[in-house]
């Protein structure tokens, strides 16, 4: 599944980052590498973008970008 499908509070483990170009590079640089665990922390008031928690910090990105991030949901 892709990251945008996860709901607030759910966790996922990154399988791979799709997409291409500068934005993909940026996501990798920010630590969205395979096997990284991501938690959906919040959704903006108007439903987009989303706020995610990874590697001890918060990152916001649009659902459009989240659609390129393939994850495997972790059920606690």
């Amino acid at each position, binding site marked *: 599944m892709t990251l945008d499908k996860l709901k607030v509070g759910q966790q996922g483990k990154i399988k791979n980052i799709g997409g291409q170009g500068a934005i993909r590079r940026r996501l990798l640089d920010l630590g969205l590498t395979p096997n990284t665990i991501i938690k959906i922390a919040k959704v903006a*008031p108007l439903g987009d973008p989303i706020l995610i928690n990874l590697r001890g910090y918060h990152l*916001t990105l649009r659902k459009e970008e989240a659609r390129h991030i393939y994850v495997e949901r972790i059920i606690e």
Partner: protein
Amino acid sequence: MNINIALIGNPSAGLTTLFNQMTDGTQHTGIFSTEANRTKEGPVKGHKGVNVIELPGTYSLSAYTVDDLSTRDILLHGKPDVLVNILDATSLERNLYLTLQLMELEIPMVLAFNMMDEVRKNEISIDLQAISDILTVPVIPISASKNQGIHDLIHYAIETGRSGRIPSEIDFCTGHIHTAIHAISHLIENEAAEANLPLRFATTKVVEGDQVIIETLKLQAPELDIIGHIIDDMEKHLDTDREAAMADMRYAFIDKLRAKTVKNESPETLEHIRSVRIDQILTHRVFAIPIFLGIMFLVFYLTFEVIGKFLSDWLAQGIDWLILEVGKALVTSGASTTLQALVVDGVLNGIGSVLSFLPIIAVLFFFLSLLEDSGYIPRVAFVMDKLLRKIGLSGRSIVPMLIGFGCSVPAIMATRSLPSKRDRQLTMALIPFMSCSAKLPIYAIFTAAFFSKNEGLIMTGIYVTGILVAIICALIFKLTIYKGDPVPFVMVIPSYRVPSMKSVGLRMWENVKGFIKKAFTVILLATIVIWFLQSFDFGLNMVSNSEDSILALIGRAAAPLFVPLGFGDWRAATALITGLTAKEAVVSTMAVLTGASGAASLELMLGEIFTPISAFAFMVFCLLYMPCVATLAAIKRELGGLKYALVIMFFQTAVAWIVAFILYQSLNFFFG
């Protein structure tokens, strides 16, 4: 020996706070800081010949924004003697990622682990010695905001810079990538030396597939072929692509390093938990937008109605008194009437009318700095992104826009944090509609003169008009020139921090200093020129009535343009022209031209030139028409061409004319 220290780190790792502690805020322009980048440079206190340069914050050397690119260029070609890499020790993973890349630059380096006070408070233990041993660079614990460890840091930075010790190469122990790095490194050795690039850096960039660096290396076809094969081979073995492989390699190394050296790391520090709690309210699903609007309203209310206004009124009285006394002194000293007129009517009235607004501007900058340093503004970007996207912008554009309420010039510089050229151009075109603080004196005088009962309402109306016009223009742009896909929006949201009063104070002082400097240079010159032009005719005889002056002639020539807007008076036209030097000059020109002495009498004189409706149209025109020369210069510099600056100039003046026309005519129709 002179030492140049380059300060670098992630945005919000504490770069500016550290810079201020190392220099006591003194800045000067040097070889690294040009108009074209956002570096700050200053002497390190207590150490002669030691300079520190603050580079724009960055997450990686792979250059995503204009800021990133200028940081990378300075590192590669500016040749600083030593790097001080500041890291947020409460968020080491992401911060160390940059460190690993910096180590490839083959420049002596010191790591400053910032926010160590928070680390200790959270009872996290970091084995700094072990990290230092593994990375082969000194690691200094500091707390920039509490001014702890700065002395040691400076000492180590100078010592490391002098010794010229460069960090050793890290063995990532990663099999296939290692093989690829090793092979390519041999292959491009000569080209890297030729292109004056550090070999390690050039190698990893080639492995990553960085086009800019590959082109700089000017590799021949056979070499490119071999590199292609090496990369293909590596990708096949790793079952991933080159970019992901490199990022993964670095993060895997960091994970191992942390496992060895960091103990008791809680995933949620106290600051993190506090941030999440604050965000439960500030970025709440329902309340976030009303809270943002409320905060902005409060900022402007406190600035204009409470603190700033009180101080400004007080200062204005002092200035009026001073003008009166100087006038008296000139009379008793027997100075010629021309000199008296020049000093009192020209210089003092002109500058005085502007200077009295200093407190309002200082207070506004205080609040804007507070919002920026606390970490609230990235939240606004998060909350407002979807709305901004509807008008073709991204949440990131909100940062420069809010700075624009202070001054357009730093706001235009701040667009360097936007990742696409399209977003930068569009944001720059809209920034001047965010009414800058220099336009405040205009509104203040006019609202006091015509709308004394509803000052707050009219003032809010002006600001809202600016924002509405910006939205309409953005929509028109989106449907015409700036079509195309929305650019990605990815932004790190830092934890909230208590703003350092030193940083806020310094920023306020910088702006106050700039304002005073402007008053005594550009505005002083403008008032003297205006005074001269309105006191003499073409035969250079002093005129008894300014109606016969040179200026009146010029103003009258321009005035017909403004008749449909309700202010066809030559003095209004002239004030608008001088306003191009700096917007405050609109007020000083009005003061000189009406011969008013002091704010109260200027308000009275304005009543003869304007009706309330035409006064409102005039304010709106001032709000929207072409920005001052400093802003135009900044736009030209940032976009590298006069053409774009000229386009913006005409576009905004046209918008101003149309909006003021519609407002004046319709208000006159209904209420006139």
